[in-house]
């Protein structure tokens, strides 16, 4: 059964696109068939982070509107065979998305992939709504600061009411991905601590991704960080998160750049 996962946050610039690419690549490296979809119509980014910007011919809007089929629009990753990208359109805007069109595309993808990962735009408008609409599972990307946490809380409320699953009376699974986490600054009190964020949002923790220059380096190379430098601290955190998504139980740590040295935080497990 295909899992539809939305990567969302409410607040902009917290690491949704980075996380979509990193988790998508990490899942694909374990042999899963993965497609990542960019719902940020008009401000597409995922193609750049994946290094596929020169290969985009057709996009999500073309498929939604029936002007192209999926075979024409899907871009296969050159590094990992089982990873594909469905890019957004840079020239159109979110009004070009339609409910029926998006539903048809998701249903078609369900027949072909194990994971359908939707990179949501920031905000709570149309694009974010369509990205979460069909999700079974949501990864809430949050930075350890109050505005990001509050926006995440808002998004969780919307996930519990505006998704198809919620409307059927089921609950959508929500997992917290704490990104750009700096243990030193958290200790100094410049940032919220992991426990504070968990207490406010009260959803299970999927992973803690440390702040690291490796992320920007990878995106400049046009590669998901988990492929660009798999032993870097953020990559190890994303690889662990991907294994938790597959149902494995892995101790929660904040990897640091010193190899082999894991800052063990606590024995909390993701649900």
């Amino acid at each position, binding site marked *: 059964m295909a899992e539809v996962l939305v990567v969302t946050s409410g607040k902009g610039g917290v690491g949704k696109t980075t996380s979509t690419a990193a988790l998508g690549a990490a899942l694909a490296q374990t042999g899963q068939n993965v497609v990542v979809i960019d719902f940020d119509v008009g401000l597409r980014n995922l193609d750049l982070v994946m290094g596929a910007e020169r290969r985009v011919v057709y996009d999500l809007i073309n498929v939604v509107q029936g002007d192209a089929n999926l075979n024409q629009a899907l871009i296969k990753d050159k590094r990992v065979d089982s990873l594909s990208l469905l890019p957004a359109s840079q020239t159109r805007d979110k009004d070009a998305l339609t*409910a029926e069109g998006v539903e048809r595309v998701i249903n078609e993808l369900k027949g072909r992939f194990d994971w359908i990962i939707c990179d949501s735009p920031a905000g709570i408008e149309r694009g974010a*709504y369509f990205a979460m609409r069909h999700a079974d599972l949501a990864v809430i990307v949050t930075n350890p600061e109050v505005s990001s946490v509050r926006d995440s809380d808002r998004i969780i409320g919307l996930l519990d009411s505006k998704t198809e699953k919620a409307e059927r009376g089921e609950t959508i699974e929500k997992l917290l991905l704490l990104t750009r986490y700096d243990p030193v600054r958290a200790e100094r009190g410049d940032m919220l601590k992991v426990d504070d964020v968990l207490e406010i949002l009260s959803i299970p923790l999927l992973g803690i991704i440390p702040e690291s220059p490796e992320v920007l380096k990878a995106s400049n190379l046009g590669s998901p960080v988990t492929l660009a430098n798999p032993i870097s601290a953020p990559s190890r955190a994303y690889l662990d998160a991907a294994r938790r998504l597959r149902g494995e139980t892995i101790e929660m740590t904040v990897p640091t750049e010193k190899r082999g040295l894991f800052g063990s935080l606590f024995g909390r497990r993701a649900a």
Partner: protein
Amino acid sequence: MPPAAALQIVPNTPEPEGKRRQVRFRGRSFMALVLTPEPPTEDWLAELDALAARSPGFFGDRPVVLDVSAIKASPRTLAALLGQLESRGVRLIGVEGCDPKFLDGPNARLAMPVGGRAAGELSAPEPGSVATGSLVVEQPVRSGQTISFNGDVTICGSVASGAEVIASGSIHVYGALRGRAIAGSAGNAKARIFCRKLDAELLAIDGVYMTTERLDPKLKGKAVKAWLDGENLRVDALD
């Protein structure tokens, strides 16, 4: 059918110089139907007509909020849809889910203020049971949500920053209260607010409100009760 809440801010008559001015803050809550048209709009309107035929007076003079986020509304199609609803006697108090600029002319007043929309996505009381009673909310109240109820409200989890609970009776929060709690909203000086961990943005009882700035910092994070002592809102630890 989420409830919509309207808050009225009622300024007091000006007080003599030197005396603290108090702004009264009354909440009024009522049920509003939220209609969410789905494409194709013609079919949806036909459904609506069928519903109206089955239950005459269903819309009556009940306020209605139109959520157009599921349809591809342009200024023109939106105006047409509003006309269709008006001709059916539907009383719109607001439109959400589209660019407010799409609402022009006489329809401009229908634009819902950004962030001020009454979300109320959690369990809403059935119209029949609105009288008085108690509402128990099992889930946390998330930022942007409004729980509005005619009676007492018990929240098992927390109330987030940017969320609000409005009750004509008392409010009990068993988690942290980080948002707003407005008790005795329809005029009830005996209503109280209880919470296990106080970090509220605003407390109000019977129109008398207090923001956290004016709260004793020692009470932050404590289990407290709030009640009205004449014209003063008092907050004290529960021990």
